[in-house]
């Protein structure tokens, strides 16, 4: 089937078997291998990308269902010369070991900070009325869909707090 995806502002016209997941379309058909496949069953978060601004697990979605959608992957967030604030923060705090979960962590965190900004509550929020704050407990809960086999969690949380604080300062 014919599918058009805009990935990181570039249009990709792809001919795909309907079974192709969004993850496989990104990696194997569009050739963007930054996004990782961990479990392929929605359990680890390595495949997290943003679709129309929202984070999803690309392994549990069919590419054909995203015809016309705008996808942002780790490659679209920044480049080695111009890192996104979260990418820079992960370097700063040493927020990874092997790095396999990192693209998913950073895409997830990028969208997660927008969710906090929009005032979405979480399971650990004391009240549902907000404001939502990027505390350690909130970040841990909101990032629970991103597993790290190396258990770099303390530094991942530190990176996200750093990026959140920098953004507050800039605002």
């Amino acid at each position, binding site marked *: 089937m014919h599918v058009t995806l805009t990935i990181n502002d570039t249009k990709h016209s792809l001919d795909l078997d309907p*079974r192709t997941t969004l993850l496989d379309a990104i990696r194997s058909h569009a050739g963007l291998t930054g996004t990782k496949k961990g479990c392929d069953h929605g359990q680890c978060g390595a495949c997290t990308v943003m679709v129309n601004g929202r984070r999803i*697990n690309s392994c*549990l979605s*069919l590419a*054909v269902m995203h015809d016309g959608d705008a996808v942002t992957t780790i490659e679209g967030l920044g480049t080695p010369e111009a890192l996104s604030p979260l990418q820079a923060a992960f370097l700063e705090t040493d927020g990874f070991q092997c790095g396999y979960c990192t693209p998913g962590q950073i895409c997830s965190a990028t969208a997660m900070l927008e969710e906090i900004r929009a005032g979405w509550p979480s*399971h650990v929020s004391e009240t*549902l*009325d907000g404001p939502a704050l990027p505390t350690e407990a909130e970040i*841990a809960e909101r990032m*629970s869909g991103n597993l790290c086999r190396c258990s770099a969690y303390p530094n991942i949380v530190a990176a996200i707090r750093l990026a959140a604080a920098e953004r507050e300062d800039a605002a």
Partner: protein
Amino acid sequence: MRAFDYIRAGSCKDALAEAETPGTAFIAGGTNLLDLMKHEVMTPARLVDISRLDLRGITLTDAGLRVGALVSNSDLAADPLVRRHWPLLSRALLAGASGQLRNKATTGGNLLQRTRCYYFYDTAMPCNKREPGSGCAAIGGFNRIHAILGASEACIATHPSDMAVALRALSAEVELLAPGGGRRQVPLAAFYRLPGDTPHVETVLEPGEMIAAVLLPPAEGGRQIYRKVRDRASYAFALVSVAACLRMEQGRIAAAALAFGGLAHMPWRSADVEGTLIGEVPSAALFDRAADLLLAEAKGQGDNDFKIPLARRTLAAVLAEATAEDTEGDRA
């Protein structure tokens, strides 16, 4: 994954017409169906994509709140009306899955998600739900996550949804569209079925019927609590969960609606339990009596025996919190 034909529905009418062909399944968020298709537990020959249909509204009416079947779990949890008047629903949604999954998961798909029984997922093992008549590997097997209430000789699976437990306590109804153009409304209480000897038939949904919306009656004032007990603090299914809407008047329990997750093939609710609480002054002895009624018929399968005392303690904790004098916590 087995090959399938993909059809994108342009309207509800389209989708319903397509669904008349046997072997067709609707796909909404895909977070449960695609997982099961990868395991070849579900092998539909045709997928009708309903994700672009206009069923995304959340509207307040005289009859309560109408939630379109395609409203995402994230949007529903964050909706200002839901947070204010049905905080229990927000809390239950936020206790489930992950941020990424909730963005994709829909209201209709969440209600129809299948059990997480390990043997249902393992096509090498007998399972009456996956393959009627093949047997049940969980009975006598590993059954830590299985049912203690309402189970049968054919199946002891539990329903995994958190949202459905909250909706059961809130006396929600489900609006269904039939292929012929019919529309009916079914209380959630009558929507799910116990396994009996047909565990593969999980709801009263007829072939080709589609969920259009979930309807919530106006919120009753009072305290609303969702407590979920699980193996880790986040991103795990419930072992036991309790959804409570409770109102106190002059030191006595004036209204109580309680639903339980992790215990049965569907969200569980007991009129006896609620009846014994109403009109009474809260006390540990009263909560114990409520638990006695809830668990009178409970039966462990071995690995899940712990759920019987766990359900008792969780109910007592929720009732203590819901009847406490302090002003903290979510209120409608």
